């Protein structure tokens, strides 16, 4: 088996006396779409934030492509090939869609100096237009991102996460608040991107239908620990998971 893109080892995190995450470990291989699910309070958001370095974990290590990423700044994590989307809307509202997408790529182009003295678009216009087209946003290329619909902004958010050609993209509740048509569109694009580029995804999500149809493998958390792991079909049939969701 090749080197895992993401490897999480024995992450623990407590808040005061409450153990939010109790020693979770897993690995994600290249090209996988991993779903991280669990009922409210299962610790999946805490785990997600520990992986992203937003929260310092009490114990454990996170490695991306074999490199430890604990206590790393978000901008440096991004430079190691990790893209992410946000649960809430996270575009730059006054900037056009094109500028949003160019921004997402420019920090990976050239040096600090070349970005100061080089071309205004860092030579990324064509690439950004391709990405916009891929996410079916071409008509909105010059529209300020803030005036798009909620679902369209989610697409811009995703386009930004992919712009730097990451190895790993962490999607934080991508389906939240998106209407059905847009959701189908989003899923379609994510699957297509994965197929085309082999990018690894880790998805944290509430919407079971969405996770089951998008992911290749699913990890279920309850009370801060992994209670099940397997393909969508296996998870669907797993009695422990059903009990956890039914509040057993």
């Amino acid at each position, binding site marked *: 088996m090749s080197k895992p893109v993401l490897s999480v080892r024995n992450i623990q995190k407590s808040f005061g006396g409450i153990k939010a995450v109790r020693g979770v470990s897993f690995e994600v291989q290249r090209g996988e779409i991993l779903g991280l699910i669990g009922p409210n309070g299962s610790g999946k958001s805490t785990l997600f934030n520990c992986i992203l370095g937003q929260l310092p974990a009490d114990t454990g290590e996170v490695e991306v492509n074999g490199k430890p990423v604990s206590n790393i*700044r*978000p*901008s*440096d*994590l*991004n*430079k190691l090939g990790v*893209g*992410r989307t*946000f649960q*809430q*809307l*996270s*575009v*730059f*509202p*006054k*900037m056009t869609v094109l*500028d949003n997408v*160019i*921004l*997402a790529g*420019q*920090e*990976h*182009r050239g040096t*600090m100096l070349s*970005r*100061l*003295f*080089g071309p*205004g*678009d*860092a030579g990324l216009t064509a690439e950004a237009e391709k990405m916009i087209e891929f996410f079916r946003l071409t008509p909105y290329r010059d529209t*300020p991102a*803030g*005036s798009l619909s909620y679902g369209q902004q989610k697409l811009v958010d995703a386009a*930004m996460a992919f*712009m*730097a050609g990451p190895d790993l993209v962490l999607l934080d509740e991508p389906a939240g608040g998106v209407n059905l048509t847009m959701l189908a569109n989003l899923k379609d694009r994510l699957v297509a991107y994965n197929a085309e580029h082999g990018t690894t995804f880790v998805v944290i999500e509430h919407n079971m239908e969405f996770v089951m149809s998008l992911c290749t493998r699913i990890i279920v958390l309850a009370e801060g620990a992994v209670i099940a792991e397997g393909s969508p079909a296996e998870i669907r049939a797993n009695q422990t998971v059903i009990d956890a969701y039914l509040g057993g």
Partner: protein
Amino acid sequence: MTKVNKGFIVAALLLAVAIVAPIGQGNYITYTLASWLVFSIAAMGLNLTLGYAGQISLAQASFMAIGAYITALLTLSGWHWMAAMPLGVIACFIVGLLLGYPALRLKGHFLAFVTLAFNTLVFLVLRNEEWLTGGSYGLTGMPRPGFGLFTTMKQFNFYYFTLAVTVLAALVMWGIVRSPWGRAFTALRENPIRAESLGVDTRRITLLAFAIGSAYGGLAGSLIAPLVQFIEPGSFGLAHSLRILLMVIVGGAGYFGGPFLGAAVVILLPEMLRFTQGYYLIIYSALVIVMLIFVPAGLMGMGQRLREKFWPGRQQRADMAEGARLK
């Protein structure tokens, strides 16, 4: 693209006005116009720090002092201005890096405090190190540069020399604001968390913006030395740093034209309010507070708002409040 063209036309018109402005005017008015240009340069630099990178510097007058004293000392010892000026500018850039590095490691407004204290330090050094700076008496008689047949000894000529330097400085600034850096600044202002997750190194880019902004202060200083031909520590105190800060705020922080407008207002207003005598600063500071309550984006912001009201060409930004809340 059309927006850029419009901006270009406005800039060309303003430049034409700046070229004809001193014609037929006396020495005093020409001098005032030149000092407007000099302070525009200083304010342009501070606008990069404040308006684009979102950090307060209270030491812009100190950077002018560094530029002015270095240029003055070197030109007094026979250097040409063209050789002395870059040293002043580079010195300010380096001091900016040294000062900004510790201050910008922390979130919060630490740069404001560090630069506030730095302003005091520079003042003390200028006053106490008499062997170098002439102490409270300052330095006098700095020569004005000559370029072959074109000598700037006359007020009129010096104005055009200053105008040329200002135009060059503005072009460089325009390049910075339009570069990927400018986009990164906008992104940091609108959604810093998202910007960082996309690889924008906030700390480094803010530090460099502050250092470049400080270098502009140095350039302004290297022009004020030959313009006034007399410099003393008192001309670069905290009050003057605040004055430059107010130019940026009044003009409109984060607007390219803001510093020019702001510098004009701050320099011309005392002339217009001369009848109020000592009450000038009181009226002025009260006006600034009122402006910050009602039009925090300054005069440029006010202009934009009026334009959108009367020519509602394209509507946007109803969503801005939401974007700001998502921080």
